């Protein structure tokens, strides 16, 4: 076993990227994720990699597009306003079927908003974000260890499905420090990148593009992408449960708020309340089947988010009227993180109404 380190979530994500073999980083400074470019600007030159602080988020996502088109593992990171700027490039990458990892240590909005923890980018992340009806896998770590592990996993998913992948965190998982075991990257069989541009070298011409003007070409391309999303839904769903089997109230939330909820649930259990947790780890593909099963079994679901209600819509779709769905949300604002004690109160009230 590797030695346990004590690092920030943002650093853990950067370390995970390096362990995954990422040697190209393009980004632009923005709080609260700047530890990621700072770390990589120190480490990449010594590893024979490239670090560019680009002129904008727009430029950095397009540099990522270029490096990825060459078949290299590459990434960018930013926070909400910067991620908005990257959406153009993400759409082009999805259309061009290019892998790549985008880390969003999201902050609050709309507009310039603030820098505290928020989950207001859920819709933007899981529903496509840019134009053109695509999806990208979205992974939601809730610990420093997962910032590392899921960033590594994101690179594998990106290569497996030839798609951009987003790691969605916030300032809680980005700024907090916890123990990290920097495990070696999992050995997964990945397809050869026989599509990457490389200079013909006597071989066939390769073209990376998202423009399809021929008769029926674009329709076929969209169906192909759609089929890929269906495979992801079958194979790549990740979630975690905690005391969910006998729960009469199933609390669900992703990322940082799931940690707060977990402690609130432990407190509720001490009071004899039958409460459990369902935490989606992949937000796309959303664990709709597993959540529906657990939610319907409990009969009542409480969705907790650091926003005014986004994932709750997907939860309602998943249970499809077969369980009661309640919502507790906290819009972003200084000091607005709910404490476990506050969530416990919400849980008590929810249970009282059963």
């Amino acid at each position, binding site marked *: 076993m590797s030695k346990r380190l004590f690092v920030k979530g943002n650093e853990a994500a950067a370390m995970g990227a390096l362990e995954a073999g990422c040697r190209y980083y393009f980004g632009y400074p923005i709080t609260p994720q700047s530890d990621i470019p700072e770390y990589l600007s120190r480490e990449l030159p010594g590893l024979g990699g490239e670090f560019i602080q680009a002129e904008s988020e727009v430029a950095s996502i397009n540099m990522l597009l270029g490096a990825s088109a060459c078949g290299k593992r590459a990434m960018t990171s930013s926070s909400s306003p910067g991620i908005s700027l990257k959406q153009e490039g993400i759409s082009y990458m999805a259309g061009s079927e290019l892998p790549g990892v985008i880390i969003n240590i999201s902050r609050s909005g709309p507009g310039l908003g603030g820098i505290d923890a928020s989950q207001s980018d859920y819709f933007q992340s899981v529903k496509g974000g840019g134009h053109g009806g695509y999806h990208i896998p979205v992974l939601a770590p809730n610990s420093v260890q997962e910032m590392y592990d899921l960033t590594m996993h994101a690179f594998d998913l990106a290569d497996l499905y030839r798609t951009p992948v987003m790691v969605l965190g916030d300032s809680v998982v980005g700024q907090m420090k916890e123990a990290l075991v920097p495990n070696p990257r999992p050995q997964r069989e990945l397809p050869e990148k026989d599509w990457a541009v490389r200079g013909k070298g006597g071989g066939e011409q390769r073209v990376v593009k998202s423009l399809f003007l021929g008769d029926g070409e674009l329709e076929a391309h969209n169906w192909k992408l759609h089929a890929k999303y269906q495979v992801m839904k079958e194979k790549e769903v990740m979630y975690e449960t905690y005391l969910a089997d006998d729960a009469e109230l199933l609390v669900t939330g992703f990322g940082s708020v799931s*940690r707060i909820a977990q402690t609130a649930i432990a407190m509720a259990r001490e009071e004899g309340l039958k409460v459990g947790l369902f935490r989606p780890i992949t937000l796309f593909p959303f664990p709709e089947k597993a959540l529906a099963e657990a939610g319907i079994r409990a009969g009542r679901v409480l969705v907790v988010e650091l926003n005014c209600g986004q994932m709750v819509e997907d939860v309602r779709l998943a249970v499809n009227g077969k369980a009661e769905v309640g919502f507790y949300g906290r819009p972003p604002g200084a000091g607005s993180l709910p404490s476990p004690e506050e969530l416990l109160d919400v849980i008590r009230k929810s249970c009282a109404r059963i």
Partner: protein
Amino acid sequence: MRYDLMIAGFGGQGVLLAGNLLSYAAIEEGKNVSYFPAYGVEKRGGSATCTVVIADGAVGSPVVGNPSTLVVLNQASLERFGSKVRPGGICIYNSSLVDVSGLDRGDITLVPVPMNEIAMELGDSRMVNMVAVGAYLALVPAVGTASVAGALEQALPERNHRFIPANLKAIEAGGAAARQKKA
């Protein structure tokens, strides 16, 4: 066991280093720990806060609403967080700078430690945070003092390793003061 602690003061008092030090010690002991610095507007307002959770099992929430122990280094922090200490909890306060007469909390243990005076006596006012760490460990056995000594090397940048003996003295002095006040 699960220990949660909030340390609060103003920027420059070494609040974050104190939290880091305890966290490194917990790591050294093979425990789980989360260290969550207050982030955002507060940071620029000149105050510094961090929450540390040390547990044998899962840490759970890195965010704590009602800490079982609060260590306050300045008056503003007491006013902000004094009411939040869990009933039955402990509030260790820097009696050099903090006046608790306005705090109506008969349900918690208030422990005065004149951190600035102790640090000055040791010859370095910057040791206030170490005095606080010593006071905390004297009252709450979240980690062993020996692990803290080992953790100093990790928590301090290498150029400051020469101050480790002085830091240890401050931790000891803080502990002695807290034990005396509690007794």
